[in-house]
């Protein structure tokens, strides 16, 4: 029971005289708690902890009516939606992730300036001179990836549980917008470290904008996005502002539209508990009600604790956000990819349609009629997005039962498979045509970490095992005390000798010590030069001519190579 203040307002001294100090302390504490919780007195907090049922009238609904934060939350849930299925808490997790990103993002902002002159240096500073800098960065990056995953899965679940159907079409549509914002939020952040990875991923990503028809518009869109024909200082600033202000604010706003609708219609019940065509989410019989306070609140707090534990432990022990070399606009890494959630677009741009024509031996249509980049890079994705937006309004099947939705479920699975396939097609593992020698050099020592080969095999050799000398794959005699070097040389031998595009191929490896703690590793590939009839080309003396490709890298004792 709440205590009432005696009138007129007494002095503390009088209070103590009248009630004794224990009681006065309790009264004041009670007052404080009641105010902070917007209506739950201390005695009620004790009841909640003891697991006792609420009294009538129920003070536990006060925070929903009196308080700001909970006014958007329903005061009770239907018992059928409080388990893992059907929501899997994916919407909740998406929102939590957004909050965590905001907090860690502000931390990172303190140390970051969006200018090509210092951005990369700032990143280094965050990693080597800011306490908890790496942890914060890793949590932010891991959280961003997790948010994209959570939002995508959340969309899939609302599709598969048919929660997008009447009356929740608009909720779905706002959700699609949230998905787009989430993707672009993540994508815009991708550029900020200003390393090779980010620079080229974003270059690839934004190059699609250029294909927006008509060409004049495409150029303008590209200019608006990048601030110049290529990404530079202007582009970085634009992406930064998108990332820290524009997109988060919009996302936050649209989220509340989304969530208002969710609460307004009630969380959809699992399809099997309602009669076909019914929507009883808002008509919860009293015995099915689970109060938000305390039951759901505790659940949600638990999910939050679990999520934070996942991110912190994951970032501290299992995940390191990548940071490659400084961005270099003049040097395109061999296998550049968009971020994974846009790989499907990169796959589309490799154009499955044209590849299919090639397979069938049919001629490709002229690019004046069929502009692949425009159709696959802009028009098709635009149509897909538009379709997703209006999809619920086109679905006239009123039943949410799984057994009544065979076609929709199959279509959903086909969509997911197509997405997966296109994502695979987007990776450099699929239909990338660079010459065999370049691929070999890339596999053994890429100049930038490679999406397929990582840092390359050469960099797995511990520094001490880089024994200076010249090694010829035609007569390999690696030093006995350098097993890893021997392995890599064997691999190289096998690789050049078995590659059909490198006839009679061999490699010469030269390792030399350049400075104390610094070694140079050079690979020279040689293979037979063939003419158009696949016959060896010969010089005047009739000797076969060999072609050559060479690359050298340097390895320092302190850089993490060698499995460090």
């Amino acid at each position, binding site marked *: 029971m709440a205590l009432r203040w005696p009138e007129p307002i007494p002095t503390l001294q009088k209070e103590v005289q009248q009630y004794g100090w224990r009681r006065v302390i309790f009264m004041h504490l009670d007052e404080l708690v009641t105010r902070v919780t917007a209506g739950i007195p201390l005695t009620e907090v004790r009841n909640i902890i003891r697991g006792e049922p609420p009294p009538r009238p129920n003070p536990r609904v006060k925070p929903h009516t009196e308080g700001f934060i909970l006014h958007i939350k329903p005061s009770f849930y239907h018992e059928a939606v409080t388990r893992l299925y059907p929501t899997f808490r994916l919407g909740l997790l998406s929102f939590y992730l957004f909050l965590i990103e905001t907090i860690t993002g502000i931390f990172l902002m303190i140390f970051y300036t969006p200018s090509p002159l210092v951005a990369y240096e700032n990143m280094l500073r965050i*990693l080597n001179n800011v306490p*908890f800098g790496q942890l914060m960065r890793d949590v932010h990056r891991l959280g961003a990836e997790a948010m994209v995953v959570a939002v995508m899965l959340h969309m899939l679940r609302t599709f598969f549980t048919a929660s997008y159907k009447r009356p929740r079409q608009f909720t779905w549509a706002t959700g699609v917008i949230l998905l787009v914002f989430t993707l672009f939020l993540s994508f815009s952040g991708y550029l900020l470290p200003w390393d090779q990875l980010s620079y080229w991923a974003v270059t690839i990503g934004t190059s699609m904008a250029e294909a927006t028809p008509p060409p004049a518009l495409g150029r303008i869109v590209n200019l608006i996005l990048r601030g110049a024909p290529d990404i530079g200082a202007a582009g970085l600033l634009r992406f930064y502002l998108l990332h820290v202000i524009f997109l988060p604010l919009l996302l936050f706003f649209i989220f509340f539209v989304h969530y208002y609708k969710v609460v307004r219609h009630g969380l959809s019940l699992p399809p099997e508990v309602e009669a076909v065509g019914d929507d009883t989410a808002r008509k919860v019989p009293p015995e099915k009600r689970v109060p938000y306070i305390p039951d759901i609140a505790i659940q949600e707090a638990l999910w939050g604790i679990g999520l934070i534990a996942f991110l912190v432990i994951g970032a*501290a022990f299992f995940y390191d956000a990548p940071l490659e070399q*400084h961005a270099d606009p003049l040097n395109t890494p061999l296998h550049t990819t968009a971020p994974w959630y846009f790989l499907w677009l990169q796959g589309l741009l490799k154009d499955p349609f044209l590849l299919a024509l090639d397979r069938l031996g049919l001629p490709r249509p002229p690019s004046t009629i069929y502009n692949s980049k425009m159709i696959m890079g802009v028009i098709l994705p635009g149509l897909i997005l538009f379709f997703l937006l209006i999809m619920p309004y086109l679905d006239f099947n009123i039943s949410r039962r799984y057994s009544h939705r065979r076609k929709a479920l199959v279509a959903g699975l086909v969509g997911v498979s197509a997405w997966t396939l296109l994502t695979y097609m987007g990776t450099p593992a699929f239909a990338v045509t660079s010459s065999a020698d370049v691929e070999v050099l890339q596999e053994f020592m890429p100049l930038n970490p490679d999406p397929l080969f990582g840092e390359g095999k050469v960099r797995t050799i511990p520094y001490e095992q880089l024994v200076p000398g010249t090694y010829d794959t035609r007569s390999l005699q690696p030093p006995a005390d350098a097993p890893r070097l021997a392995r890599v040389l064997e691999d190289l031998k096998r690789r050049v000798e078995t590659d059909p595009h490198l006839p009679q191929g061999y490699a010469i490896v030269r390792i030399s010590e350049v*400075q*104390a703690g*610094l070694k140079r590793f050079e690979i020279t590939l040689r293979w037979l030069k063939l003419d158009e009839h696949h016959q060896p080309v010969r010089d005047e003396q009739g000797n076969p001519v060999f072609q050559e490709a060479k690359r050298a890298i340097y390895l320092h004792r302190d850089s993490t190579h060698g499995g460090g």
Partner: protein
Amino acid sequence: MFDLATRRIIGATVLMLATVITIGMVWLTEEQRMARYEAIHKGKAIENGALLYEQYCATCHGPNGEGVPGKGPDLNPGVFQHYEELKQTQNYANSLRNFIKLTIAAGRPIRSTYRADEVYAEPMPTWSQDFGGPLRPDQIENLVEFILNWQAAGPTPAPTPSFEAVGTDLTKPLPPGDPKRGEALWNQEVKQASGAAASCKACHSLKPGEVIVGPSLAGIATTAAQRIQAPDYKGQAKTPEEYIRESIQQPNAYIVEPDKYAAAPGVSKMPATLGNQMSVQDLADLIAFLMTLK
């Protein structure tokens, strides 16, 4: 065993503890982690710098900073010596790092006093984009790290002047020469008294007629004998040995085919400082070897 609420409380407590312990562990190891990251990054910067050096600098300063006659001075240990010299003689007040950085970034538009007796075809160009060069600031930093590493990485053997260099003095008596050791010196299999390898073969070929920078030395014993007879010869040599000696110690005394081998009127492309690296024995051995090339 426990009811749902208790299980939740236990679960939440365990997760929170795990999070707090993880943060605590990160906290405790943060200093080391940051130091380690800095070392790793410095290693990478040196690697990058080495690649850039190979691409942009080695043509003039030599793959190992040993310098290229006629193109650019040695950097290892040249820069470090030059810096010390400037500090001592001119009160140069900047740091070594900045000295190197400024030189790379802005070039040397005007010849400094360093290696003043050598002639270089062109001044050092500017490299930083700030001054119209091709390199970004971070690339300049990488180059600086690489160059500093010659010294920082430890024993760049300090040039020990514990030997008596022959310099340009033609009158110092020479001991008997050993052509075998002379050949080894030529092939850089043994070092000169200064500890540096003889750089002769960087510019002179032993194949007849092949010109790298200077003329081929194939048959030099014979050619030397003809040279001292030539009407335009104005050096002091009386014998082929003396002619070779003079050419090494005082390349400007007589320049063969000046339009081919002079960097400026009266100044040979061949550095006049080679004698500073050699003891009398080195010189005698080299001459003995060259005299075998009939």
